[in-house]
């Protein structure tokens, strides 16, 4: 079979989607996570329960929602509740398995900055801010982060901790008492990083054709290579077809 062509964004979406398990209850974020969850539901995780922060439970959108408050999320969902209810009854209470997050900066210990580059009071670049991510990162059982692998996106320390990973590492997260387990994987266009026992993100998988040196050069801390670092399976024709034809035919994200 001829090798399939795919772009880095498709590679990220496909690998992020594969992290989801059937029957997971997932709190879906805007953009690429939205694509990944909708891809997973159409492939290996058909019983995925998608919760949107707007207060939609069990969504089965017939089209890719551009926003996370699209009307197609509501039609055919199992429940709609207020935002206060979704953040309390579902997230704070502990009824969410997976949080999907992105951010402008992710640091060595999986802390996320989605707020500001530079000083908070005198911002160099003002980003959108937390939205739901501050609470999702703390209270979902496990979190996945998706972001392109660039040095400026992976500084050793984030400029602003919008939402936490493992703070400064070790048992720092545990000591805060937050209920969730923190980031389990960071999916990039070069591979997958996972936290080691100290909470530091290390390279645990590379996409086909990627070298460790490439990943290390694009990371803002001395990146470690996990023993037994794997090579990810390339996207399948079916995954690419669903992404391109069903989910994002206008190519807004991919």
């Amino acid at each position, binding site marked *: 079979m001829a090798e399939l062509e795919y772009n880095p964004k498709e590679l990220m979406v496909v690998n992020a989607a594969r992290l989801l398990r059937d029957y997971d209850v997932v709190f879906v974020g805007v953009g690429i996570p939205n694509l990944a969850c909708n891809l997973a539901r159409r492939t290996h995780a058909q019983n995925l329960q998608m919760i949107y922060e707007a207060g939609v439970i069990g969504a089965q959108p017939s089209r890719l929602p551009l926003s996370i408050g699209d009307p197609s999320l509501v*039609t055919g969902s199992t429940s709609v509740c207020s935002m206060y209810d979704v953040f309390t009854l579902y997230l704070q209470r502990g009824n969410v398995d997976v949080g999907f997050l992105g951010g402008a900066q992710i640091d060595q210990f999986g802390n996320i900055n989605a707020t500001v580059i530079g000083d*908070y009071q005198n911002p160099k670049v003002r980003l*959108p801010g937390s939205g739901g991510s*501050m609470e999702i990162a703390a209270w979902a059982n496990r979190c996945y982060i998706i972001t392109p692998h660039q040095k400026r996106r992976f500084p050793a320390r984030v400029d602003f901790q919008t939402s*936490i990973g493992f703070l400064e590492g070790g048992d720092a997260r545990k000591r805060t008492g937050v209920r969730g387990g923190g980031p389990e994987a960071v999916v990039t266009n070069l591979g997958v990083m996972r936290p080691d026992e100290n909470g530091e993100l290390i390279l645990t998988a590379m996409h086909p054709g990627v070298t460790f040196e490439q990943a290390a050069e694009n990371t803002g801390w001395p990146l470690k290579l996990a023993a037994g670092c794997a090579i990810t399976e390339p996207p399948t024709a079916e995954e690419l077809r669903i992404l391109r034809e069903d989910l994002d035919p206008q190519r807004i994200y991919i």
Partner: protein
Amino acid sequence: MNSKLTSLSDAIHQYVHDGDLVYASGFTHLIPFAAGHEIIRQGLRDLVLARATPDLLYDQMVAAGCARKVIFSYMGNPGVGSLRRIREALEAGELEWEEYSHFSMISRLQAGASGLPFMPMKQTGATDLESQNPNFRRVADPYTGEEVVVVPPLIPDVAIVHVQRADVNGNAQVWGILGEQRLAAFAARKVILTVEEIVDEAVIRSDPNRTLIPGLVVDAVCHVPYCAHPSYTQGYHDRDNDFYLAWDEISKTEESVQAYLEEWVYGLPDRAAYWEKLGPEVHKRLQAGQRLSEPVNYGDY
């Protein structure tokens, strides 16, 4: 009971004043653009504009010079990028801001709507925003001694809430994404309701569980079909995603934003004229189609 029906223009004139804290509610859904445009036309100034997601509406109101300050928890154009006018104003130090996470923002409304002095939330381990916004405090849980985060009530001077249908007294029924509609209405001192369809009280009484906002907290009822465009009203018209994408271009320069406001806000008398100007192709593209719910039996007692 007396009818609260009034024109949107009269309601804005009567209930929104320079310097007010305004909460135009609706999380992606039911954002009352027509009311924001009327505020721009009436030239209101120094407003404090609060919304979880300022959305294009507050980007436009900030660009029109209505605002002194924004209160928000996600300042983005959902799925598209940033709100360029607000962002530039913040980066230039020309606009005050107060920032929350969605949950802490909504918790403030919950406190305001419930008549409580504060709302507790479990802490998140993320302390940077807490340390920048003095409205976040930590107190000891009196039962366990553990620290919880608390936020004070948010009590808007006026909330503007768009709903699918209501009677002339303001008993309002909403379906689809509910966001913070109900909390904003209960928290605010004055409530302007914009309504897709005015219905007989008997219609409301036929399905009381769907009434999220009772007339007793509503001050003005305005019949404004298509009030929410380019946001949407579930079952009435679709979200205009094309416009949300187009705004990313329009909002790139001050000049093109002002040209937009000239053509689509100052240059038009009201929402009916705006909807007509959008034209039949847009109307067709935004049709909602039909998926009816199964009726329920309330019983005849």
